[in-house]
């Protein structure tokens, strides 16, 4: 077990004509025993980062530590990390048993120890029945488990997983997701999991590192990313259904301050808690974000009311979605499975003040998160 630390890591690929910066100034600490996800759209640098940690790729500049050891110049086999590949990468000419034992045989581990370690991973991953088969005789889910077993039998101090669920169907995905989470709880090894799927990341990770355009955007727990996004990209990338966004303008009308929707002129009072700082900061062009699950249908204390007209109602079984027109734009809310709405009806929607997300339209920084964090620091002091 070990922590993984990246200090100001850069990765630049040089081809004949141009330089491509795949990773830019990445500093990240993965704690010992932590489940960390590297999340981002394709081309964001997450795969390069993972390959640098494993040692399949050199760093252009910066340092990588595993535990206290600087590993920049160590070859992959000397880093004591294991990796399971997206395509499973099983040796088709070997049986499942030989596949799993391959890393131990390569190191010359004694036969008795091989047997005990094999037993352990076989029990953990439930693959007893598959040992004598060849990889080509296995289903996708089975191949996936064998590839996990081959990685885990080495007792790595860090375990990297590259998009392990991407080739599985929905049912198998649910089961495998649970199994990976369970494995982590059982092993308490440091896991680094690479994915482009935000739902996978939030359902598995202790913390998530969100990357975009080769740069780290934010590192945080699932709650932090959902409720305290640092910028518009993170807020929009995480969450499903996606956050509702409205371009608006902060206007003052005889003492009261309102958010005026750019498209329709619909006005909403600015959450009281932030009014003063918006005035002080001179923020004018804003983007208002409301998460679909933060919308309530009943009034209460500290709630801001929005008036809408139901445009689409979706019965989905476990929960229902209602999409209303508010100020000329669509707003989707997630409501309980017991609640039904009729299309065309007026509807009042209530959002807790502190759950409004406000972004600067130009810098795309999330102002409300900045305000909230400042408040918390003040409260502590």
């Amino acid at each position: 077990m070990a922590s993984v630390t990246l200090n100001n890591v850069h990765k630049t690929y040089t081809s004949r004509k141009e330089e491509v910066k795949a990773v830019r100034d990445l500093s990240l600490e993965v704690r010992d025993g932590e489940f960390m996800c590297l999340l981002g759209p394709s081309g964001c640098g997450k795969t390069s980062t993972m390959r640098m940690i494993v040692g399949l790729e050199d760093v252009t500049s910066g340092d990588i530590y595993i535990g206290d050891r600087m590993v920049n110049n160590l070859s992959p086999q000397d880093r004591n990390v294991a990796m399971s590949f997206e395509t499973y990468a099983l040796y088709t000419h070997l049986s499942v048993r030989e596949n799993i034992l391959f890393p131990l045989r390569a190191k010359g581990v004694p036969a008795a120890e091989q047997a005990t370690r094999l037993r352990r991973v076989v029990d953990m991953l439930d693959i007893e029945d598959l040992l004598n088969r060849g990889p080509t005789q296995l289903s996708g889910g089975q191949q996936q488990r064998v590839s996990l077993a081959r990685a885990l039998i080495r007792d790595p101090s860090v375990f990297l997983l590259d998009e392990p669920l991407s080739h599985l169907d929905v049912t198998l995905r649910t089961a495998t997701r649970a199994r990976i989470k369970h494995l982590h709880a059982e092993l308490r090894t440091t896991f680094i999991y690479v994915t482009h799927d935000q739902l996978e990341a939030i359902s598995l990770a202790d913390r998530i590192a969100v990357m975009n355009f080769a740069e780290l955007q934010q590192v945080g727990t699932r709650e932090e990313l959902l409720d305290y996004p640092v910028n518009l990209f993170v807020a929009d990338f995480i969450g499903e259904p996606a956050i509702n966004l409205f371009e608006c303008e902060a206007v003052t009308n005889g003492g009261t301050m309102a958010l005026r929707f750019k498209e329709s002129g619909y006005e909403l009072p600015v959450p009281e808690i932030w009014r003063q700082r918006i005035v002080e900061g001179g923020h004018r062009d804003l983007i208002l974000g409301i998460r679909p699950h933060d919308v309530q249908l009943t009034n209460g204390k500290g709630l801001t009311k929005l008036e809408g007209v139901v445009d689409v109602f979706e019965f989905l079984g476990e929960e229902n979605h209602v999409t209303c027109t508010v100020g000329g734009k669509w707003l989707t809310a997630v409501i309980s499975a017991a609640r039904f709405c009729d299309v065309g009806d007026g509807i009042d929607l209530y959002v807790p003040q502190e759950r409004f997300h406000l972004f600067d339209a130009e810098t795309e920084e999330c102002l409300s998160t900045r305000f909230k964090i400042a408040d918390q620091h003040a409260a502590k002091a």
Partner: protein
Amino acid sequence: MAEVRTPRERITDYILNGILIVIFTGFLFPVLWVFSLAFKTRSDILTWPPPLLFTPTLENFTSLLGGLVGGTVGRATVDFIGNFANSLIISSGAVLVSILVGVPATYAIARFKFKGKEDLAFTILSFRFAPELMVIIPIYVFFQELRLLDTYIGLIWVYQLITLPMIIWILRGYIEDVSRELEEACRIDGYGQVRTFMRVVLPLIRPGIAASSLLAFIYAWNNFVFAVLLGGSRTAPVTVGAMQFISADALRFGDMAAAIVLAALPALLLAIYSQKHLIRGLSLGAVKE
């Protein structure tokens, strides 16, 4: 994304390139030699060792096109322009007929299921690797009976053995690459089978038609056996015409070289012109990845 190459890799590159250059010169040598002959005077041609530098002359071309070759010794009259026109008529005629017949035929082979389809497709291809001489005698007899000897129609007909298989086999891949759903979509859009073919399939296989016609044209252009045995003085193409330069009294290298350069010209121009049609990029992005 290529990594920076190490010195060792760079040395390997140099060696490889060197070998390639040697091989390439070997292949190109005859072409360059013929090309230089065409612009040499008779005396330059016969000088040994051949001079690397010489004063180029158009003498060979003018005498060739003038129809009077051979300089002072062994004068002969040739009709190179006539041969050239014959080549053009027969080759383009053959390709045209092959396209008119071949495109629908290929469509049927590529799209429809019928008994013996693969056998039929193979039989058509086998025309290409059966030696021409094997069939020439029966064909000669037929042609005699049908009075097709030394006629354009006869030659265009027999050239189908060369051009049709070429077109069918190249186009088949192109048509199979056109998603069936594109045609289905067009049928549902309200177009009949023929119109759907014209609207959707034809434009998408245009690069294939260009590529296969070009190849078929070149093969037809280069044919000698059919032309020499089934043609005659009226229909002789350049391949047959060039024979006249080899006569009992003299080998006319200069005239022959000039004739070869001129004869190669149409195929070369066609290849350059149709380059952009040969790129199959058009059909990309039609359906999901």
